[in-house]
């Protein structure tokens, strides 16, 4: 209907220009800035070199990246393990009348503020928080457990809690599309449940798994609020380190760390999309 290029371009132009101007250009700016130097009192000195990247690739920062990717991996893994049975139940086992309600209920917490959900966990996990007070009152423990908050445990809990809906939804979509007759055929041919799952359900839902993984992994790598609030600012994550560069007015270094982060994320995405294509072709 919109055959003429002119009309199409007119429709496309506003969004395209907006992103070009206020998204791509800023990214370009930090790419340029990542080769510059920190001025004596902050600010940017436009002399170009690779010094920021040399620094960013030192073991110190590689460790920071490593930790962030580890956090993201653990978060993604847990989300996957928790979500898969839930999505499976909603998509294939639940009474059709309750299906939609269950789905909505599973993603509803996403509609509330991430900050408040994180705060809720602080409220629960403090030394004199709900969990400890309840366990003390029940006589389960004698002294409050202190590692509940300001620990890696707390960061992972908060992160999983925040990202769970992003895993459930794509898994549900993938499982919903699954043709139940294929499963029945396999069972009729004598496959047991494990075989059906491994040989049929898992491969067919691989695109959903990959989508969910991407949706959970990316925000978790750059996580900033959970390490700060639930981790007690005790562990360096790439998000907090980049933020600190900004605070310390070292924009060039912050830019270099950001550019590296984007590059790694994009490479992972490329791999994921390859994997998805491979999985769906089989």
């Amino acid at each position, binding site marked *: 209907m919109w055959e003429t290029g002119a009309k199409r371009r007119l429709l496309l132009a506003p969004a395209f220009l907006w992103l070009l101007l206020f998204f791509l250009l800023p990214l370009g700016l930090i790419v340029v800035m990542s080769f510059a130097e920190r001025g004596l009192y902050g600010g940017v000195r436009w002399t170009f070199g690779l010094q920021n990247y040399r620094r960013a690739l030192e073991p110190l920062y590689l460790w920071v990246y490593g930790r962030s990717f580890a956090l993201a991996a653990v978060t993604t893994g847990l989300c996957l393990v928790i979500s898969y049975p839930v999505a499976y139940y909603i998509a294939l*086992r639940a009474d059709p009348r309750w299906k939609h309600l269950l789905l*909505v209920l599973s993603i509803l917490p996403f509609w509330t503020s991430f900050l408040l959900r994180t705060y809720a966990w602080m409220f629960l996990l403090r030394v004199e928080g709900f969990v400890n007070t309840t366990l003390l009152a029940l006589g389960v423990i004698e002294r409050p457990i202190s590692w509940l908050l300001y620990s890696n445990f707390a960061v992972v809990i908060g992160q999983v809690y925040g990202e769970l809906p992003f895993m459930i939804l794509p898994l549900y979509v993938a499982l919903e599309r699954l043709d139940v007759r294929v499963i029945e055929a396999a069972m009729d041919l004598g496959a047991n449940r494990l075989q059906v799952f491994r040989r049929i359900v898992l491969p067919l839902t691989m695109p959903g798994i990959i989508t969910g993984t991407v949706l959970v992994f*990316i925000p978790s790598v750059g996580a900033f609020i959970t390490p700060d609030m639930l981790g007690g600012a005790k562990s360096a994550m790439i998000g907090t380190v980049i933020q600190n560069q900004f605070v310390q007015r070292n924009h060039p270094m912050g830019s270099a760390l950001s550019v590296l982060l984007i590059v790694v994320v994009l490479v992972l995405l490329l791999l994921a999309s390859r994997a998805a294509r491979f999985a769906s072709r089989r």
Partner: protein
Amino acid sequence: MNARSRTSPILALWMGATYLFLYAPILVLAVFSFNDSRLLAVWRGFTWAWYKAALSNPPMLDALRTSVLVAALTTLIATALGTSAALALERWRGRWRSLSEALFVLPIVVPEIVIGFASVAFFGWIGLRLGLLTVLIAHVAFSVSYVFFVVRARLATLDPRLEEAAMDLGADPWRVLWRITLPLLGPAIAASALLVFTLSLDDYVITSFVAGAGATTLPLRLYSMIKTGITPEVNAISTVLLVVTLALAAVAFRIEQRGMTRAHLVLVGLILLGLVGFAFGDLATSRPRATLNVLIWSNYISPRVVRAFEERTGIKVNIETYDSNEALLAKLHAGVVAYDLIVPSDYMVRILIRENLLQPLDLTRLPNLRHLDPSALGLPFDPTNTYSLPYTRGVTGIGYRRDKIAGPIQSWADLWDARWRERIVMLDDMREVFGVALKLLGYSLNSTDPQQLRQARDLLVRQKPLVRAYDSANFDQLLLSGEAWIAHAWDGQIIKARRENPNIEFVIPREGTTLIVDNLCIPRSAERPDLAHEFINFLMDPAVAAENMNEIMYLMPNRSAWPRLRPELQQHPIFSIPPDVLRRSEYLQDLGPTTVLYDRYWTEVKLAR
């Protein structure tokens, strides 16, 4: 075989556990918003008090208004742009298509922290003033992609024959768009609009970078509230927001299920009208004579003092907060920020002067200057007080719980005492934390010697396993709640906490410490320097200063006000620092390029186990 007949109990249990995990935190939060106790997670009886407090908290309501306004505008713009882009790219093959798709994918896959960082660098570079506009621009930029992909997914499932039929019947393309395509896309557009509204309403990370004067959104306000004290007031606000979002989601759910009926349209219209009415509500009610934008540390000015000034002059004072000098500088650097009054610390005043970011004060318009203690004037960072006047002075020290920690605390070394493992809190402030280690080693806290800094780092790495958290805002609350027993702390908050629990003590360690003067300064870019002068003079009035001090519990160098202070402040440790300790104490200085070294070692400390 009937697949639905057998649901294993394990699966049912799994479902239950997951939903419990999803809802328990929110429910507990909501229940305790009615709890009649400020600090405890133990039920003490029912009260509405926190709701009253939250709903009569003007900065909170202002922030909510700002958020709704930004979210509504973002939704409008992003939905229009995203939908038209999706229409344009539908069934269009070629170069532009893949190029545009790549462009639309980027905002979804680039981590938020990078988007925020890049945006603020960009706004600074083109010289755009940080404020509502920059927040709006950034929000549209990160949310337009979601609309694009949701609408496009729906477009792909549309039957092209419907449009073709309409065309064959003689409708022109615009008519087809209006009468056929858009109505069919309705649910997708509505869903993506709702998504954008929530994303915008909830965004903290990007907004924290690009917000300027008058653009404090609800998440920014909530973050600083959470950081500066966990009170049930936050629970109450959460519950209100929760109920509102649940209602919105319920409406969306019904629309999705039953299709958009006229009644729904009216309902959605009413909700939108209500929101817009709320957002613009205060514009209609009272037009203040003028607005003074103040950027100050959190909990650093008495709300009653602010109200008194507003009532006396008819000027509206807009208070916004920051939590580090560097964040303040970043705001000033990033763009031309429209703040009229800022409160930088000593070393930062020097940097701001050097960077030409301050304007000279007109001392003739400040008659109350005569009340200030001469010893607080003419300090090295601004020897002639051309650009700054002292607001408060303070020290860094140790706050601790006398009832938990036996024996007198006298030294920074007590923060390394393994007996208080997991009960020690350090400030989340690079220079202050290194200052402690350097002082303990007998060095200057402004050391630039790499050897000394390495030693300090090693000391801090050794301390790390004992530390419960690094926290610059909440350390008083952590002491009060018993989460921590001993804290690296600034004086005012600890002395304030003593009012709630007399077992809390504040000491200045014998190795010497950081001396702090926070100053009233007017940025060069201020829009109303006249009002700023009026306010500075008001703050130096002895009666006002006394009321202010008695509330925030930080000491001001206002000699005429001292006799009116509370006893706790009259006995402030600052008045009785032993001369040798004072001699070993220093003001922080800007260390220029050595900052990079500090940053590196700070990251190493944070990485250590």
